[in-house]
Structures are given as C-alpha cells and as structure tokens.
C-alpha cells in the first residue's frame, strides 16, 4: 500500500530540470504535462493537414476541375488519396491524440491527485512512436505513386494488391503508420488505465473519480480490447501487400470479408473510444458552469460501461450490404438499436444536469452545450443507418457522411475546443479572451451546420460518397431540390461554409497568441470555483503538480450543496476537509 507520499526535497530536485536544454525540456521530457503538450501540438498540426485536405476536395466537388488555390488541379487519384487520408488523419491523428492522449496525459494525474503517470518513460516512448507514425503517414503522400487512396476502411483486395490501387508504397506506408499509431496508443492507454487504477489520491473512491478520468480510462480499455484484431489484420495486410500472400485474396483461398470484420470489430468501438473522453469533458464543464452536481453520477457510469460492452456487439452494421450473410443483419440491427438506450439515457442525464442550475454561458460552456446539441443530431441520424432495411438505401450515401461528421465533429473538434478552452487557464496560467472565444465559437458552429446539413439533403437524394465529380451522373445534378437550390448549389454551399469555418480557426490561433503574449498569469489556481483536484494545483502546475499531494474527501461535483450555501459558497472542493 501507499507508504511514501510527499517528499518536498524531491520537488525541489525536480525544479532544476527547468533549465535543461530545449531538447531535454520539450522533446525528451517525461513530464506528463509536457507529453500532453507534445500530443496536443502534433494533433493540431495534423488537424491543419486534415483540414487542408478537406478544403481541397470540397473545392473539387463544388467546382469540378478547378485549379484549387494552394493545391492545383485535383486528379481522381489525388482525390481518393485526399479523402482517404482526411479520414485517417482526423480519426487516428487528431481525435485520438488530442482527446485521449493529450487530455488524458494532462488531466489524469492532476485529477486523481498525483504527480505524474506511473510509467513516465513508457509515456515518452508512446509519444515518440506516435510522432514516428505521423511522420510515416505524412511521408506516404510524397512517395512514388502518391498516397493511399482506398478509403480509410482500406477494404482489400483494393488495399492489398498494388495492381489494383496503383499506390504500392503509399498503401504500405499507410498501413505501417496506422499500426505504429496503434502501438503508441496501446502504450499510452495501458499507462492511463494503470495510473487511474493505482495512483489515486488517498480517499478517492471509485465514485469520487471525475467523469473525465473515468471516460478516458474506459475509452482506453475499449481501445485496448478492440484493437487487437485490427493489429492482426494490419500484419496480414502488410504481408499481402509486400510478400503477396493471400489472406484477403479469394483466388488464394482468402476472404476479403475477413478484413471487414477485423476492421470494424475495432472500428465501431473506436467511435466510443473518442466519444467518451469528449463526454467526460462536457460533464466537467456543464457541472461547473451550471453550478450543479452531475445528475445521477452512477447512472452515467453504468451507461458508460453498458455502452462500452454493447459497442463490441454492433460492428457489422457497417457491413450490412458489404457481403455479410443477410441473416446476421438481424442480430446486428437489434444490438445497434439497443445501444441507443444507454446513449439516449446519457444524453437525458446530461440535459437534466442543467435543470434548476445557474447557467453561465462562458466559451467552454458554449462548446459543451454545442457538443450536446450537435451530437444529438449525429445520434438520431445513426438510427436510420443502424436499422438494416433503411440502410440499404443509406449505405455509402452522403447521409452516412453527414451522420458521422455530426458525431465526429462534435467529438473531435467541439469536444477538443471545449476541453481546451476550459483547461486553458490551468495549462498556461492565463485566461483566454472571452470575446474572441465566442467569435471563434459561433464562427465554427454555424458554418459547421451549413456544411453538413446540405450533405444530409444530398445523401437523401442518393448521392454516393468518394466520387470525385458528379458531372457524369445526371440524377445527381438536379435543379431546384431545396429552397430553389440545385444539387450543385448545395455542394457549393457546403464548400463555402467549410472555407468560412477554416478561416474562423485563425481567430482561435489569434486568441492563443494574444493569451501567450500576456505578461501576468491572471488565472489563479481555481478561476471557475471548480471542485476537482486539478484546480488545487498552481496554474500552470509545476513539476510534481501539487505543492503537497492532496487527500480526497468527497465526489467531484458537489456544487450548491445546502451546507456550503449556509457558509456563503456554492462549491465544495474535493480536497477540502470541511
């Protein structure tokens, strides 16, 4: 059991590390906060690449054959590579590193009241492997033949045989990058799980753990338990590509459907892997800014576990029409619809948290509420796709695309900005500019809806995905389908909105720049009067995080407790004894 606790000399000792060289401080650090920043910066850089890709192929769709400023004329091969890598980057190199790795690294030790991860060196290794994977992926765009263009699902035989995909090097590098990335997150994930299980502050029982930590840990467990088959599949795919084995080649007795199962057995839980951390951030934010306890903490926890376990039973709903036995579709329809129950319950619980609260619409709160509202759209449109019969129509249309962007965008972008703006004072010690924050918020969320609502309409009209120009399809160039707009007008609308949204991201970078330039650290350790342990640490937390490692006396959401109100305050931090 825990014997040694705080050793002040140790902290002083750590203090000297501050004047180590640049490499030692920023690249070779084992400090969980620095590794979090490394993940965050890498993830944001990759987000810029992914966003640029989106800009290029949206321009091509809106104005087929146009010389896209900053890229040039888009060929079909380039178009395929752009959409493929946009998807891959946004999920594996943006959502995962930012939501799980960056926030997990930053928050877990702070929120459970300890000074670092349990395996700091493995943590550093995890980032280095991740960085390597990012480099491998980016390099795959520049090799001979260009980047891999077989969709992020990489269905063989297209992905396995270079005679079919015509990108012999690009596709292999793509698989290698993805496999390396999985290794990085396995290392990181086991670190997160172990830290949260083993290094909690004294007094912190299971039900005293902040939701953000719970969610990141459950997400890491889901990732760890689901990724295995895909790692196995990636190994087989690499052999198929390089040595021409026939794991997925029907001519050699293999089966392409096997890959689909290996992929989606991971691919569906992956949705929840990135969803859960975002939900965790939202829980922290809406409780803080409505000054209320999280409604039914235990119910949320049970629904998280329920969702997690159910998410392993639904994967084939991505394959309804992809060659699986039609009888299996019945089972997967039922399990998929079942998963709506815990998710709906979680939504209701979050919304119920607002009831009789005292809501302040700060920037992080706006992001958190936008997450709930937008994700709701993503959630309900998922029902259409999870039901086998309607999926015959919807499969591979823009409806699917709009649906999962309504889930992934709130998760990866809105969720990240919610977390980032909320914990920014803790990360840097300085408050962000609220006005710029709100401009950025509205400048992101309104265009976001203008991008993807038209795409729902296009999907409803039967437009398929991953087609680089619709000019050859008469049925997809109709006039006057919605409010006097033709289908091409809707595409142009979506593209325009995307450009506007990307432009508004500079407001965020301006805000970051202005904040970092501020001289004084004006945040204080607890700017929001919040309860969880990270607000005890100084902002920004130094090496070792806490001056004295805290002890926990209660749950993280004790806002507006009647006993405390009598004392004239509406929050009751976890670390205060009385």
């Amino acid at each position: 059991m825990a014997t040694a606790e705080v050793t002040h000399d140790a902290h002083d000792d750590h203090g000297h590390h501050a004047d180590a060289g640049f490499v030692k401080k920023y690249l070779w650090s084992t400090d969980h906060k620095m590794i979090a920043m490394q993940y965050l910066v890498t993830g944001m850089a990759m987000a810029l690449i992914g966003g640029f890709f989106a800009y290029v192929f949206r321009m091509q769709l809106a104005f087929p054959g146009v010389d896209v400023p900053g890229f040039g004329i888009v060929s079909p091969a380039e178009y395929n590579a752009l959409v493929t890598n946009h998807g891959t980057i946004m999920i594996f190199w943006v959502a995962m590193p930012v939501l799980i790795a960056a926030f997990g690294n930053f928050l877990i030790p702070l929120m459970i009241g300890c000074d670092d991860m349990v395996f700091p060196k493995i943590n550093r290794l995890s980032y280095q492997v991740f960085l390597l994977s990012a480099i491998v992926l980016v390099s795959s765009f520049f090799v001979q033949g260009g980047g891999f263009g077989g969709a992020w699902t990489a269905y063989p035989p297209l992905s396995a045989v270079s005679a079919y995909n015509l990108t012999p090097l690009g596709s292999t590098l793509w698989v290698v990058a993805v496999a390396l990335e999985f290794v990085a997150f396995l290392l990181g994930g086991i670190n997160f799980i172990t830290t949260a299980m083993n290094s909690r502050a004294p007094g912190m029982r299971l039900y005293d753990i902040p939701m953000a930590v719970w969610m990141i840990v459950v997400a890491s467990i889901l990732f760890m338990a689901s990724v295995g088959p895909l790692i196995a599949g990636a190994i087989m795919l690499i052999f198929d590509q390089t040595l021409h084995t026939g794991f997925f080649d029907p001519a050699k007795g293999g089966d392409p459907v096997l890959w689909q199962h290996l992929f989606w057995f991971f691919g569906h839980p992956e949705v929840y892997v990135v969803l859960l951390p975002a939900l965790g951030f939202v829980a922290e934010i809406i409780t803080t800014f409505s000054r209320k306890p999280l409604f039914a903490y235990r119910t949320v926890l049970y629904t998280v576990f329920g969702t997690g376990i159910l998410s392993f039973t639904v994967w084939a709903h991505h394959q309804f029409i992809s060659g699986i036995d039609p009888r299996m579709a019945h089972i997967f329809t039922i399990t998929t619809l079942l998963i709506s129950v815990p998710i709906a319950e979680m939504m209701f619980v979050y919304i119920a948290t607002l009831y009789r609260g005292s809501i302040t619409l700060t920037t992080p709160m706006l992001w958190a509420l936008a997450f709930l509202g937008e994700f709701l759209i993503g959630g309900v449109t998922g029902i259409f796709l999870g039901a086998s019969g309607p999926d015959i129509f919807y499969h591979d249309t823009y409806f699917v695309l709009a649906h999962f962007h309504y889930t992934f965008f709130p998760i990866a972008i809105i969720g990240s900005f919610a977390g980032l703006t909320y914990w920014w004072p803790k990360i840097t010690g300085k408050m962000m500019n609220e006005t710029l924050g709100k401009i950025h918020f509205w400048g992101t969320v309104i265009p976001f809806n203008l991008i993807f609502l038209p795409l729902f309409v296009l999907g409803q009209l039967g437009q398929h995905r991953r087609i680089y120009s619709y000019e050859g399809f008469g049925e997809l160039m109709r006039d006057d389908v919605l409010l006097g707009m033709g289908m091409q007008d809707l595409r142009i609308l979506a593209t325009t909105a995307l450009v506007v949204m990307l432009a508004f991201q500079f407001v965020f970078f301006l805000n970051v720049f202005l904040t970092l330039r501020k001289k004084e650290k004006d945040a204080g350790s607890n700017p929001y009067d919040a309860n969880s342990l990270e607000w005890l640490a100084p902002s920004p937390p130094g090496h070792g995080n806490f001056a004295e490692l805290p002890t926990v006396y209660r749950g993280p959401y004790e806002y507006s407790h009647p006993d405390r109100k009598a004392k004239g305050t509406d929050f009751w931090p976890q670390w205060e004894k009385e």
Partner: protein
Amino acid sequence: MDWIVHASTYADSVDNAILLITWLVGFWFFLTLGIFFWLIIRYRAKPGVDAQYLTGGEAQPKKFITWIHMLVLVCDVFIVVAAIRVWVEVKQTLPETPETQTVRVIGQQWAWSFVHPGPDGQLDTPDDIKTVDDLHIEVDRPYIYELTSRDVMHSFSVISFRLKQDAVPGRVITGWFQATKAGDYMIQCAEMCGIGHGLMPATVHVETPEQHAAWQASQSGGAMLAQAGR
C-alpha cells in the same frame, strides 16, 4: 421521400421504414432539443437565484429517467421490426414466379458488365447478351441478379430501386428487383474501388416488353459475335 424516383416494388417498403423512423426519431429529437434550449434559457444565472442541489438520486427524477428509458426501448422495437421486415423482403426472399429472369452483374475496374439471358430467358445459352455499363430489363418483370466482382470490391447501387449490394470477389451474391416504371436510371458504384471509382456510371434501361424485344433483336448479332469470340 418523394424526393427521388421510386421505380421498384420494394422502393416504397424501404421508404416507409425510413418514414417511420423519421417520425419516431423526429419526435424524440425535437422534444429533446426543445427541452434542452428551454433549460438553457430558463436557468441562466440570475443574481439572487441559486442552483439547486439535485444529485439524481431522488426518487422523482429517477422515475422520470426510467420512463424515458422504457419509451425509447418501445420505439426501438418498432424500428427493429420495420427494418427487419424490409430487410427480409429485399435481401432474403427471391421471386419464384415463372416469368422471373436472371441477369449476371459483374463489377470490375472500372465498369459494370451485364449478362442478359436473351430471348430464351436462360443464362449460359448461346443467345446470352453481354453489355458493358448498360443493363436492359423489362418493366414489371421480376429479375434475380447474380452479383460478383472480378477484382476488387464494388457495389451495385440503383438508388431509384433502393437497391444496393456490394460485389465481392470470390463470392456470388444473389438478390432481386422488379422495376415498376419505365425509364433510364443511374447505377453508381458505392464502394471505393480505385482511381476510377468516380468514373463508372452505368445505366439501367427499364423498357416496355416491346422496347425490350426490339433491343434484344438489335443485339442478337452482337451476341453471336461475343459467342464466337469466347
């Protein structure tokens, strides 16, 4: 759902299932969204009004959540039943009437090949008609398709029929359709199949029996040629 043509017998079934889901889901969506915005507006921070300490352990709100729980489950049951009924109709039953004909659909990079049974109504006979990117069928006649692929995965999708099925190499998948309206409809490939994925539009020509017979007659020469070249 009258946005796009429904030109097959089961297009309406698919649309009706979608419509049912739209109503059920739409109800929950607008209800939730309404409550959500109402709460945000109603409970904005006001000076002198404190938040209430509600942990959700109280009996009243708990009962409320359980209720919603049950209602969602009931909606799910309706959706599952509707979805499965459509699914069985489209994917798991084949027409067995004597006028049913079989066509072979083969995907390849980047075109669709079709093998029509020809005047005798039988596949693998000398009068088979092979075409590329043009499928000719008779209106109101049930067709069974045998779908396969020569190289990579493709997907045979006729939106106006609400028909979509992936073509998997090494696997022959059967299904059916019965067109109800004459006309030309678009076939899209709905599974990423390489560089030319965006460039393989094909057409299904739904013809009246007379038109179809005329087309068959015009093709018979070509069919003979194809046969000779075999």
